[in-house]
């Protein structure tokens, strides 16, 4: 009996052993069969997929955290030709929702490029029509017979971000825009294009969930915080628009800067464009320099440049504020006669009187007394003829002719002293004048307050571009300019605040001759004089109500200065000084 059991066990063990052996043999055979190689190849084809990760473009904020440029989802709508069921239904739906021509859509689906398995019907579709199409596709799928495909099967939706500007045209000249190809044009968008865009990463991504940790981490583009104050910018644009209407000017500029550190607080220009419709650019602007004249449109500034001639004369010791001279109404420089703006003599004047009455003869006298070497040395150190380095794309350097240049004549030494025959941009004048408002130190104008990357904020420090004049000269000249405004009862004065500044009225050269009926009216000013916190530049092109800067640009300065002190919480001088005394 026991022997019988033993035999059974042996037979059973042998049978089990054979089964196990058969399984192992079969496993080995399957693993090494040609079909297995094919399956392994197919599996490896799907093990990784090549994907390009496009980082979201960095946002742009104003200094108080208001979004100026962000990203918004749009859709690419296309057709997967391998799954499409009813091209006519797709063409009808797309025609209705996207306003596309039925025949064109049908042609795109039925006659695709050779080898194509997917065709794009329309890109950059807004969320609303794309959502409606998606809902329609779902409804048709639900209503289809059980097991059948909906008639919009094959219609595909791919969302991706698109640049969006919530403030529309506000600060358009500062921000610039991004094309649909993702490239920045003008302003900050172009200047910091690489930083904002980030770096796309193309890599093979494993589909194996066990390798999920190999998914690359793509950093979004750097977010920028600008020095611009949105509310001040809006006020500047509003004041500029009203001023153009009031004074009948063709175009204009209002720029506001903190003269202590070069931060641009506002920069209003005309015309402006809605950045969400950047394709209208060509119909709005004749040339690229019109996009942001503050930095890219050099012009002859006229008398606002006199403050720099006076700064050079005072700093070089050529004159003192009390130095007097006899104004005869004309002076001969380089064989040409230079006259005052009213062709009249002004008699004995001190240097404050020169500025107050904006005397061309006085300035030409100062420049000739300094000599070309000294005068142009100061103009060069003020930055004329050089880029300021402002961090916006498209800056122009202007032109300062120097002795030795082919087109420089001795008379230029006289005319340059009162802003004729020299072309500068508003930002260059502001940078140069910052040395007067800022105790002799010139600041580099800039629009970038901070960068935010990977959750960390990096503040941009102020940069100084040199000290062309001494602190004493700067303070003396500021006082002289304030007195000259007060003495003439300028329309630029702001009650409660002591401001310094200078008007400019420059005739516009037409066909090689200055046209006395067409002028550029300008004003540069800053305040409060004892602690300058804002510098404002006004430029009105061809004002028709009056050709004079003192009657057009000066009151615009006062209006802008009042808005500035309110929005920047700058108390009147008496209150501020009282608080400081405590």
């Amino acid at each position, binding site marked *: 009996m*026991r022997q019988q*059991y*033993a035999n059974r*066990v042996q037979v059973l*063990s042998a049978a089990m052993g054979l089964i196990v052996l058969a399984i192992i043999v079969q496993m080995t055979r399957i693993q090494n069969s040609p079909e297995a190689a094919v399956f392994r190849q197919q599996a490896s084809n799907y093990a990784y997929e090549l994907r390009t990760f496009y980082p*979201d473009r960095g*946002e742009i*904020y104003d*200094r*108080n*955290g*208001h*979004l100026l440029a*962000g*990203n*918004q*989802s749009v859709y690419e709508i296309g057709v997967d030709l391998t799954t499409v069921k009813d091209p006519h239904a797709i063409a009808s739906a797309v025609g209705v929702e996207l306003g596309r021509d039925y025949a064109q859509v049908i042609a795109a689906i039925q006659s695709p490029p050779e080898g194509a398995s997917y065709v794009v019907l329309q890109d950059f579709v807004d*969320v609303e029509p794309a959502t409606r199409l998606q809902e329609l596709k779902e409804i048709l799928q639900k209503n289809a017979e059980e097991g059948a495909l909906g008639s919009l099967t094959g219609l595909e939706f791919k*969302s991706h*971000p698109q640049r*969006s500007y*919530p*403030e*529309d045209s*506000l600060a358009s000249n500062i921000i610039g825009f991004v094309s649909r190809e993702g490239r920045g044009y003008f302003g900050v968008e172009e200047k910091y294009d690489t930083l904002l865009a980030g770096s796309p990463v193309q890599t093979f991504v494993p589909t194996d*969930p*066990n390798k*999920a*940790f190999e*998914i*690359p*981490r793509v*950093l*979004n583009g750097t*977010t920028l*915080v600008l020095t611009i104050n*949105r*509310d001040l*910018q*809006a006020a500047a644009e509003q004041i500029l628009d009203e001023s153009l209407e009031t004074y009948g000017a063709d175009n204009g500029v209002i720029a506001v800067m903190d003269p202590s550190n070069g931060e641009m607080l506002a920069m209003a220009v005309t015309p402006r464009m809605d950045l969400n419709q950047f394709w209208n650019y060509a119909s709005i602007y004749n040339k690229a320099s019109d996009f942001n004249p503050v930095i890219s449109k050099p012009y002859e500034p006229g008398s606002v440049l006199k403050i720099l001639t006076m700064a050079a004369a005072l700093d070089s010791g050529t004159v003192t504020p009390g130095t007097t001279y006899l104004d005869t109404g004309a002076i001969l420089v380089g064989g040409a006669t230079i006259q005052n703006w009213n062709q009249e003599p002004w008699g004995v004047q001190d240097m404050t009187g020169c500025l107050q009455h904006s005397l061309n003869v006085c300035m030409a006298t100062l420049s000739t007394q300094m000599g070309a070497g000294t005068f142009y040395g100061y103009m060069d150190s003020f930055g004329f003829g050089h880029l300021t380095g402002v961090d916006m794309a498209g800056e122009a350097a202007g032109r300062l002719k120097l002795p030795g240049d082919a087109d420089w004549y001795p008379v230029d030494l006289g005319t340059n002293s009162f802003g004729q025959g020299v072309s500068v941009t508003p930002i260059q004048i502001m940078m140069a004048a910052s040395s007067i408002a800022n105790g002799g130190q010139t600041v580099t104008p800039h629009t970038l*307050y*901070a960068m*935010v990357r*990977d*959750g960390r*904020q990096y503040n941009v420090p102020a940069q100084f571009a040199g000290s062309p004049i001494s602190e004493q000269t700067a303070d003396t000249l500021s006082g002289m300019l304030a007195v000259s405004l007060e003495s003439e009862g300028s329309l630029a004065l*702001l*009650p*409660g*605040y002591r401001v310094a500044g200078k008007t400019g009225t420059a005739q516009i050269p037409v066909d090689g001759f200055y046209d006395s009926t067409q002028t550029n009216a300008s004003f540069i000013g800053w305040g409060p004089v004892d602690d300058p916190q804002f510098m404002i530049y006004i430029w009105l092109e061809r004002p028709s109500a009056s050709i004079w800067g003192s009657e057009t640009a000066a009151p615009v300065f006062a209006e802008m200065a*009042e*808005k500035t*002190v*309110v929005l920047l*919480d700058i*108390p*009147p001088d008496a*209150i501020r000084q009282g*608080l400081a005394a*405590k």
Partner: protein
Amino acid sequence: MNIQNVNVNHLVHAYKVAPWRVQRQWIGSALLAVVVLAMIATLYLDVTSHAAIAGREIQDLTASISANQQVSADLQTQLASLTSARVMEERARKIGFRPMTSAEAEYLVVPGYMALEPDILSSAPVPQLSALTIPPEYTESLLDWADKQIANSARGAP
């Protein structure tokens, strides 16, 4: 006759008397080995399936993070449009506000007040999804672990 010869003779005798006892011992040992292997296989299957599920969840969450970031950007832009300078001014005028002049401003001294400075404006840092932050316990296989232990022992590391 030594002790070894006695044991061998005893086993031979025992086999002749009851050979099924030894066979049962062999079968028992084999079954024990099978059970141990089955347990290891089950454990390995359990760990790898959990790892696969976790990996799939990571993939889903990564996709979800991207989608949520896009939704967040959309909402942020919409909010900015609704609070743009033009819209806010229109709303303020509609409810009776008007721009103030500098003469109307009153300045008060508030002891200890510090003017607000622009703060960090970005959201929290994006979670790190690279291998660097995932401990090796979650990525290495049993063999990798064993290799590492052996290597550490050879180096005398704790």
